[in-house]
């Protein structure tokens, strides 16, 4: 089954199968992110730049800022959710996320 993934509305959303599933304005904690040197990046999700998939994991590149150190920029690929049996489940917003290496978008 094919899952349609898109970034929409100037980066405000990740749409999964034409349904707005992941939104900006959340705080995500990232372990070992390439955005800054903080042990745990506390990222304000300002804008989605790209969305892709690695196996069943949906990933995104995010423009944002670490509120711990102030560094801003675009992250590498960060998991945002998983697709199981054709339905999408967003990762717990309070979970610590570990960026993945790559995605084929």
């Amino acid at each position, binding site marked *: 089954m094919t899952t*349609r993934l*898109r970034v*929409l*509305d*100037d*980066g*405000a*959303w990740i*749409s999964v*199968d*034409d*349904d*707005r599933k992941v*939104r*900006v*304005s*959340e*705080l995500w904690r990232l372990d070992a992110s390439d955005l800054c040197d903080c042990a745990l990046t*506390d990222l*304000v999700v*300002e*804008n989605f*730049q790209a969305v892709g998939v690695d196996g069943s994991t949906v990933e995104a590149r995010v423009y944002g*800022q670490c*509120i711990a150190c*102030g560094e*801003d920029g675009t992250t590498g690929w960060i998991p945002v959710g998983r697709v199981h049996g054709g339905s999408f489940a967003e990762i717990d917003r309070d979970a610590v996320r570990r960026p993945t290496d790559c995605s084929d978008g």
Partner: protein
Amino acid sequence: MPTDVENWKSEVYGNEVRDRLFEFAEAGFDSIPDDERDAWFERFKWWGLYHQRNGQEGYFMLRIGTPNGVLEPGQLRVVGEIADEYARGPGTNPIFGGAYADFTTRQSIQLHWIELSDVPAIFEKLEANGLSTQQACGDSWRNIVGNPVAGKDGQEVVDAWPVIRELNETFKGNDDHANLPRKWKVSVTGSADGSGQGDINDLAFEPAYKAVGGGEGGVDNDGSEDAVGFNVRVGGGLSRNEPRLARDIDVWVPPEKVPAVAGGLSALFRDNGDREDRYNARIKFLVDEWGPEAVRETLQDEYVDFELETAGRDVREEYTYNTGSGERNDLIGVHDQKDGRNFVGLNVLVGRMGAGDVLELADLADEYGSGEVRLSQRQNVIVTDVPDDALDAFRDEPLLEHYSPSPSPFMRGSVACTGTEFCSLSIVETKNRQVRFARWLKANVDLPGGVDEFHIHLSGCTASCAQPQIADVSLRGMKTRKDGDPVEALDVGLGGGLGDEPGFARWVTQRVPADEVPGAIANLIEGFAAERDEDESFRAFVARHDDEELDALVEPKETDYEDPMLHNTKRTWYPYAENDAMEDAPPAPADD
């Protein structure tokens, strides 16, 4: 590879979207196939409809493009009637009520909670009265902006209103320019005050004189007459943390040739803009890449069939609008028209006016003026054509207690975008927050002597719809943690403004919890008053201090200001609802 949006646009876009839009409206919101919703919501933007954020499924923002902000007699009443009848939804705003109109920084009007099934009736009423939503959003010519009192302003160099009307008639609904790589924002200004804000537009025409063998206009030092027309700038804009001032491409154009040059540049953008990366698509990035000289050369070689004149003598040294100079920094108050009558600028706090007040203002415009109303880029309204002998009675109208021609500087200077109330991109709540800020500052803070204007712009994100980078105090949505909990916060920038030497605000203090922002501004103003050189403007004061010094002046502080929206308002379906949790969101409106 073209983006999904480009693929959708290549299938159906522009004028042809209308028939399908009406079919969906007739059949009901649920008739839009699930696997086509992303595509249709993107296409609907071309007709001014923007699906509201999640939790508000099935409701749309509707934007009416009013070229140059001009509402001809009767049109404001139509807007008020439509707002009253159709712009009501399941959420009620605690400050503004259940139906209102938003006047925007691009001289347009936005209504919310619009149901798809009502769109044909709304379009019919708008169009029967000379109004339209066509291209109010989407990738094409947006609402053309300028000095809202074009044709009437006593400070006018050249009347830009006929030019704007011709551009609007030429490029609205024009299939050759309907599908651009991205939005296309145009400013045409004939006044010497800079109120068209050309520097922050994709394409700007600004008044200028040129010696071209006679003609009307100014007089040079040698006594020869110059023609009046426009200098051309390209590639300005504020969005995405990549603000740019429009670049001078060394072109002067007489009024009659503006459509040819504007069309040439629009076509240049159409053919050369980036359609593979929407973040890189605006023409400001093309100008970055090419340089203004190459833009001019390509325009000359490929897009116009006459010899372009080099730039003329501009009047930028006379610009006052949004400069912080203390002269005509906005268009609030009573000002002279060329014909001896007056235009009266009224302050609309954060640009939002209840539907009942819109209708009452329309009545007052009829009674005291010609019925015409115009919209400024500072989200305010202007009643034109008021004779001298009607001014006192007009000013005594009770409605003007709320929409004052002589407001508090903090009311006068407040601009705010839509925010998380409706917008998908915004990170924080904005309009009601800016109202609370302005009220608190008015009650608690005095500006130093001689300072009677102070611009504070609040934008919910880096899209910069409130134009934060050109304010005295720029506020931009952010998040932080307070006592370990996530809270809405604001970055603070200082000292932005336009004029002969425009400059963007410097972001000196980051992530101030929203409830500490009024205290921070109070401390900043206290520092300004204490350290100011004589009658120095705030902008000049900022310019002579470094970021560290300014950051020290912006000392966040809790006060008796209370902010009820500190939590993550994006997690609500509507921030002001009693039961605001996303799971309490109402279903999409039922089909009639």
